[in-house]
């Protein structure tokens, strides 16, 4: 009762009580535990997380838009919609152009946002993948080998985390990016691994001491097998959660770098570079131009964060909902 009580004094939705109820079963007061595998259990919990489901829905819509959109409404940089009758201020949203038209070149904002989705999402997710791969490798080496190697790698992480990263990325994009999408992805990826590396290392250190790894070692399981079969699966859920944060951060970061003109070449629209000239049209009250790309960013980042929250709850083996 004490733990039940502690839960009750602090947490109205007392999990201890729920668990007790689960275990006692409905009819014969005997212990009854459903045995589900890890993924079934995780999916069952994820489904109960409404925000995460909404996030997943939003993200799927954006992914479909990113894939199909540019085919339906392709963006051609050299094609200027109405070269003969330029209207300085652009046009507010209308039926024909639900997101309005930009000032200057009179581009359709909806078309820009749709085409931007492809590049922005591509950059966000691919750079995350690079960061996760580097981070997992570095963290695994650091945590498993330990000693001098660990010390050097972690000092490198310290150094990189002390740099104002957005600033470094900005400079790197200007120096090496050439407006190329692939290079921008690599630059963002190369500066996204430090958090993952620290995380994986700390998991290695804590899991390495746990009984099941010692048991595996004791029966002579090889190192590589210990890492891939025993340690990394346990590290999976925290990695996924921080990966979602990286996606969100890199989508915003890329938008800023491209907005300033250091990122992706405007031939390939992204949610950042389509805003490049928006500021100069402020006196004309051109609000729809920055509004919709910004909303696209916010909704994507919100969706990714919701999914991250849902995954964190779903993959936490201690919670059983």
């Amino acid at each position, binding site marked *: 009762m004490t733990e039940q009580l*502690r839960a009750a*004094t*602090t*947490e109205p939705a007392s999990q201890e009580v729920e668990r007790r109820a689960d275990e006692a079963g409905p009819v014969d007061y005997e212990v009854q535990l459903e045995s589900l595998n890890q993924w079934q259990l995780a999916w069952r919990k994820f489904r109960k997380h409404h925000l995460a489901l909404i996030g997943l829905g939003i993200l799927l819509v954006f992914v479909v838009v990113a894939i199909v959109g540019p085919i339906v409404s392709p963006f051609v940089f050299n094609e200027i919609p109405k070269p003969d009758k330029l209207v300085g201020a652009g046009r507010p949203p209308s039926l024909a152009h639900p997101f309005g038209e930009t000032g200057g070149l009179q581009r359709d904002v909806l078309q820009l946002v749709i085409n931007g989705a492809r590049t922005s999402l591509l950059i966000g997710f691919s750079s995350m993948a690079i960061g996760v791969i580097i981070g997992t490798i570095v963290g695994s080496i650091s945590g498993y080998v330990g000693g001098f190697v660990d010390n050097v790698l972690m*000092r*490198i992480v*310290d*150094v*990189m*985390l*002390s*740099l*104002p*990263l*957005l*600033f*470094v990325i*900005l*400079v*790197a994009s*200007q*120096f*090496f990016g050439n407006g190329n999408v692939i290079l921008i992805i690599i630059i963002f990826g190369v500066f996204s691994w430090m958090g993952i590396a620290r995380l994986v290392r700390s998991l290695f250190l804590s899991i390495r001491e746990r009984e099941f790894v010692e048991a595996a070692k004791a029966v002579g399981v090889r190192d590589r097998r210990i890492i891939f079969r025993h340690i990394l699966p346990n590290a999976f859920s925290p990695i996924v959660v921080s990966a979602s944060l990286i996606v*969100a951060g890199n989508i*915003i970061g890329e*938008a*800023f770098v491209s*907005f*300033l003109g*250091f990122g992706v070449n405007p031939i390939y629209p992204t949610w950042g570079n389509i*805003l490049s000239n*928006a*500021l100069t049209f*402020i*006196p*004309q*009250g*051109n*609000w729809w131009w*920055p*509004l919709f*790309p*910004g909303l696209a*960013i*916010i*909704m994507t*980042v*919100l969706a990714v*964060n*919701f999914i991250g929250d849902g995954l964190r709850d779903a993959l936490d083996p201690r919670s059983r909902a």
Partner: protein
Amino acid sequence: MTKYVIRRVAQSIPVLFGITIVVYAILLAAPGGPTAKFANNPRVTLEDREQFKKAWGLDQPIPVQYCRWLGACNPDVDDKILGIFPTPGAFISSHGVPQFLPSALGGGTNGVVHGDFGVSIDSGEPVAGRITRAALPTLILAGIAFVVWIAVALVIGVYAAVRRYSAFDQAATVFAYVGYAMPTFWLGIMLIFIFSGPGLNILPASGMTTTRLSPPFGSDAYWTYFGARPIEAIIDIGRHLILPVFTLVVVNIAGDSRFIRASMLEALSQDYVRTAKAKGLPGRVVTFKHALRNALLPVLTNIGLEIPFLFTGAIVTETIFSWPGIGKLTIDATRQFDYPILMGVLLVTSIVVVFANLIADITYALVDPRIKY
């Protein structure tokens, strides 16, 4: 305690050293080398480029270059080991003591350890001077943003935890999610549209002072004006600060109010809070003495770790609002490939970050009696 501080300072030396290497690597890795900027400039002759290389020691092998740039090697010693490494003699200044010591103690005068960051490629001004000039506006912006950020995040976080599941808590949750997802630069643009656009037009959108009222900030004329009408000048800067500060703090407040709320809830659920209640202490003493004091410990570390975001946030905000600080200097230097400025700014901001973390750690050790030092 002294021991702990010394150990902690010693730990940050390799980090600082690593930062100088990274910063120097940027110069080396620049496409086409440091003189590439001149290649596209028809007014610069080949001889000009050679002279630039010479002046920067760019004709030397990389280890020697780096050592001189750092200020650990004497530029007057030209001997090399294996043709690339500086000789031990190169580390000794002309006064016979290690070169890296302050010049007042007989050390050298060159290199970043002696405050010599070189000269701006673009304007020919010393980098240290440009950075110092840009530092004040950034310090004003970041300093005020920091205070607002911590104060507001604390109030929101603690109140949301104490009144858990209330309307306030739920509003704070929505704000935190949306605020955290909002790109800073986009928020800045939208705020300018709302408050400085043709609609409202009640707040200034760019700069630090109103140009038709006063001379540009930082000039001698400005300080004369400031001395003559201090209140007017401060109000003017204050009006210019509102939008940038708001833009800068929203993301941080969104993130930290969540963190503080979670930390506070954690503290409120601890056994010692129940003990405090069992002693008959009034609710506010339980909350603000027993729980808050413990809840603030992790918050303190977190704030130390977030200082870099204040700088990157300042870069973003200053660009949008044309604030004449480090951020704007950085963007301009990046546009013009002005390496000496970029290296100087990177180095200075990284050092500030290292020291901020150092101070956060030491403060933590002071306030948490469980830390052994």
